[in-house]
């Protein structure tokens, strides 16, 4: 079942096309990572999904329905958009009480439970204006999770968290999906982070969805190559080619091969070159990092 489905969703602000014919399907139990640079259109898409802004064209459905304002569907949706703000003069607990009331919940234990889950116990009677950025983020997540939603829409949920907090939230989100059948749509501008939690990633650039990929396939998409340097690179290249290794000289004058055999077993290359008396001075496997992959995607 598609929990989120958009079709040709478009939104412009004046001359700026913020979201440009985006069609996505987020299936039940998925963690869909929506990746893009700042200003790529991530937050606009999230606001569209949440009904905060109206699309110029296209359609959106949540849980298979057109989610109207005030409908019960919204009690299946928890969200956090951009910087999580709270009523500054209210305590953490009082802030949650506001949303407990607005959502018409009827089990007050849910407030204490989510405070405990987000490890805000020691701050529950502290006014929101005195919270650190990380704890404000936790309070934002607590508001989003207070009613045990089936769908979580999170905009940059790890912003402001320290490394321990990031790991904690990551594991927490994974647990929600695994043990509570929650579906998560989250945006980020950090691929390395999103790849650790998402099951599928959509890359957005200048309002367009330019690539969708399963995280498990990401490894195959990343460029890997073997780089070799010898005293006689032309001769070494000839030897490699004659022995079935497809290689070339790159812009830096190094021998470069993207052959999977060469990448997986560089010791074979080394032995071969030694055998023909052109021993390598340098041999290394280069693997494109996720950020480089992301930049390559948006540039292409």
């Amino acid at each position, binding site marked *: 079942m598609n929990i989120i489905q958009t079709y040709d969703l478009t939104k412009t602000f004046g001359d700026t096309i913020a979201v440009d014919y985006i069609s996505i399907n987020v299936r039940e139990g998925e963690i869909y990572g929506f990746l893009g640079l700042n200003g790529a259109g991530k937050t606009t898409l999230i*606001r569209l999904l949440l009904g905060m802004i109206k699309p110029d064209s296209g359609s959106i459905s949540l849980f298979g329905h057109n989610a109207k304002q005030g409908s019960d569907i*919204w009690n299946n949706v928890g969200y956090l958009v951009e910087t999580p703000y*709270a*009523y500054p*003069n209210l305590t953490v607990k009082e802030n949650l009480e506001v949303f407990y009331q607005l*959502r018409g919940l009827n089990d007050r234990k849910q407030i204490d439970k989510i405070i405990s889950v987000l490890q805000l116990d020691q701050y529950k009677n502290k006014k929101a204006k005195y919270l650190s950025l990380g704890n404000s983020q936790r309070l934002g997540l607590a508001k989003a999770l207070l009613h045990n939603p089936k769908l979580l829409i999170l905009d940059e949920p790890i912003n402001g968290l320290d490394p321990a907090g990031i790991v904690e939230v990551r594991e927490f989100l994974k647990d929600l999906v695994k043990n509570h059948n929650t579906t998560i749509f989250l945006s980020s501008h950090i691929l390395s982070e999103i790849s650790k939690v998402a099951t599928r990633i959509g890359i957005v650039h200048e309002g367009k969805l330019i690539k969708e990929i399963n995280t498990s396939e990401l490894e195959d998409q990343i460029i890997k190559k073997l780089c070799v340097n010898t005293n006689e690179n032309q001769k070494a290249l000839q030897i490699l080619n004659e022995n079935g290794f497809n290689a070339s000289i790159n812009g830096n004058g190094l021998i470069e091969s993207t052959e999977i055999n060469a990448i997986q077993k560089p010791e074979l290359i080394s032995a071969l070159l030694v055998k023909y008396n052109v021993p390598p001075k340098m041999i290394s496997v280069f693997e494109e990092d996720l950020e480089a992959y992301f930049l390559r995607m948006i540039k292409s």
Partner: protein
Amino acid sequence: MKQQWQAFTAEIIKNRHSTITLVTFIAFSLAPLFGGVFMFLMKDNGTEGLSGAFQAKATLLSFEANWNSFLGLLSQAVGVGGVLIFGFVASWLFGREYSDGTAKDLLSLPISRAKIINAKFIYYILWCTALILSNLILGLLIGLVLHLPGWSAEIFVNNLIIYFVTTVLIILLNTPIAFFAIFGKGYMSPLGFVAILLVLAQIFGALGFGNYFPWAIPGIYSGSGGADMKAGLNFFSFLIIGFTSVIGYFGTIFWWKYADQTK
């Protein structure tokens, strides 16, 4: 109805620990306090006890140190000061969600957006009502302490009617302030709007069109412009207030429900 109550309860929680509430009560209480000083200075020497502009105003309005003048003064304070203070209350209640950055948290909930706005209007009415009741009680206490002469049930009831009608007129008039708070996404633009309205009310009043300028009408009704100006109020004056209020109310609801919310 249940959802409306939930939204109202949420509004009550939001305003806990609000220092603004106390500030409005203190600011509004200045009116009966200064009115009391006014009466005290006039008590022995009439308008001779006053000086400058106060003396001119007191003479113009035929003020005396008695209950009728003092209660009239309280109504006039509501008629003019109420525009400012009630406008401040509306600006704060409706604009704070943007200034606090919490507006986005109220938009995708299983409760109608209109109910959230209605809860704010209900809270606004109760807040203003509490303000005028506190001023009335304070005024009565000051009058008693000063041993003002001329008390009668008829005078009290007549002034009470003017006091409360003036209050209702101003409460009605602040729906456009709520709209400007939502439209301007904060409480600064509606406060600016209130300041402009106060100036315009004076200008229209001076030009003789005050009875058709919504924000001048409550002041005129309260008697702050004198009996002649009050006599100039007619059915259309009150119709204009009703029209302004309805436009402001539905404009606020419409904007909150249908405008793109990007903050």
